[in-house]
């Protein structure tokens, strides 16, 4: 390739990483709004604080150690080559030209694209533990999750480690990001317990409606838009015809899966509950997105829609089932990201991806889930012993905004009509 072409492709692919990274960063706003809409007013400031803080912690921990753990490792390995450090370096123009285009993006742009994925995984946890967890206990866990737990399993797949060598396929992170986050959430929720009044001794499930449906809806749309960067950017390149076509297909499929998930969840909820349930529709769209994330390329639009629809159907029944097991998840995070994350990983076997095998997928699912769940459980347990993870009963009744934050979210709102 001529030097000019190499230069332009380098710039274009770097730019692509940066724009996609910015879109994924925007998903943090989506999670924040979605969760804020599905909790009660008295707990809203606290969940906002959790979300803004976890984003900052995620990026910082990944900068300090996570990126090096995840991408400094050896081929097919289990342990990283290094534990701390920066790991970010941009090639010089001479090096890029000398590589004849093999080095085709800025190292810093790769870091930027990866760091926003960590925050996404961490953010899955905040919704599941909402309304009764101590703020600082959650942030302490975030440090461990984003500095260590997530990067280790990320290294095993995307860092070229043993899961990758075993043929495990996970294009943009149904497993590495979504199921990982859900496993950490599940460990936390089990140790935390359900919200007071959610389940009665005689097996009834009480509804605890969220305070702000408009926020939940806009949160869904923000996540949906950000997901174009999440899946689209994971192609890792756009600067030739084949790659540009692939990226376009990924955008189409990502969108189609969300639509399929939403429609399916809306219809299923109507059939099961008798009325359309907005919160289920929102969960359904996100489930569709999670379902396609492991393989957003090797489908047509119709196929992607159906994969998403299966995810949307699953999520409705998963929410009901988790409640039956008294696993209290105010926003459905474990269902959307965990249950449907597993479906997304298995669906790769149906996609025509020639490298996918059932054994490979099951291995990835098992390893990521076991690693994340066990280490998270240990981390939560230690935090629980040291500082406690749950607020007191009185504080839970008054609302964690009062006890953890001292700031009301809606101080001048009158009671609802």
């Amino acid at each position, binding site marked *: 390739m001529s030097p000019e072409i190499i230069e332009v492709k380098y710039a274009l692919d770097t730019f692509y990483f940066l724009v996609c990274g910015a879109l994924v960063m925007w998903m943090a706003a989506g999670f924040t709004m979605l969760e804020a809409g599905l909790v009660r007013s008295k707990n809203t400031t606290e969940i906002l604080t959790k979300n803004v803080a976890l984003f900052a912690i995620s990026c910082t921990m990944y900068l300090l150690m996570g990126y090096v753990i995840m991408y400094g490792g050896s081929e097919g390995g289990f342990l990283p080559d290094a534990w701390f450090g920066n790991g970010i370096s941009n090639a010089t123009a001479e090096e890029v030209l000398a590589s004849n285009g093999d080095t085709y993006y800025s190292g810093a742009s790769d870091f930027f694209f990866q760091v926003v994925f960590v925050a996404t995984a961490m953010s899955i946890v905040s919704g599941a533990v909402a309304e009764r967890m101590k703020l600082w206990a959650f942030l302490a866990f975030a440090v461990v999750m984003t500095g260590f737990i997530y990067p280790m399993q990320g290294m095993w797949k995307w860092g070229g480690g043993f899961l990758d060598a075993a043929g495990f396929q996970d294009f943009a992170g149904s497993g590495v990001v979504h199921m990982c986050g859900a496993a950490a959430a599940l460990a936390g929720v089990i140790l935390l317990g359900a919200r007071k009044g959610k389940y009665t001794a005689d097996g*009834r*499930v*009480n*509804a*605890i*409606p969220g305070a702000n449906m408009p926020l939940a809806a806009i949160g869904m749309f923000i996540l949906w838009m950000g997901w174009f960067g999440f899946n689209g950017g994971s192609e890792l390149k756009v600067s030739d015809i084949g790659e540009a076509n692939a990226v376009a297909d990924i955008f189409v499929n990502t969108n189609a899966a969300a639509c399929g998930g939403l429609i399916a969840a809306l219809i299923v909820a109507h059939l*099961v*509950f*008798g*009325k359309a*349930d907005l*919160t*289920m529709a929102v969960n359904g769209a996100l489930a569709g997105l999670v379902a396609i994330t492991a393989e957003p390329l090797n489908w047509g639009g119709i196929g992607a829609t159906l994969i998403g629809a299966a995810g949307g159907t699953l999520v409705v029944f998963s*929410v*009901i089932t988790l*409640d039956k097991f008294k696993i209290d998840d105010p926003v*459905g995070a474990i269902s959307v990201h965990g249950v449907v994350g597993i479906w997304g990983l298995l669906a790769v076997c149906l996609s025509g991806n020639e490298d996918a095998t059932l054994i490979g997928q099951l291995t990835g699912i098992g390893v990521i889930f076991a690693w994340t769940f066990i280490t998270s459980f240990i981390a939560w347990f230690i935090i629980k012993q040291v500082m406690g993870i749950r607020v007191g009963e009185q504080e839970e009744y008054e609302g964690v905004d009062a006890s953890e934050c001292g700031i009301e979210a809606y101080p001048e709102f*009158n*009671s*609802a*009509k």
Partner: protein
Amino acid sequence: MKMITAVVKPFKLDDVREALAAIGVQGVTVSEVKGFGRQKGHTELYRGAEYVVDFLPKVKLELALGDDMVDGAVEAITTAAHTGKIGDGKIFISDLQDVIRIRTGEAGPEAV
């Protein structure tokens, strides 16, 4: 002097206010409340879990009136707030011990 407290359906507030203005009532305090009488509520589902919607939104009006205006006000409220469907509301009339206008310090019937 009497205090009239009326609980009516929220969408009837404007009609009631206009009817009271038409008969010369000069002031009213309004609050958003919830309540039920014999209307009772119903159950809804949120993410598959039941919740009971017992308390229905209503609007409460409180007006202080001279005794001579009470009948007219009751008539006005009843006519304006009536739909014939269950849940139309109630009017409560109680004796008012005193009324004071804060700005001027007037008390009694002049302050109404």
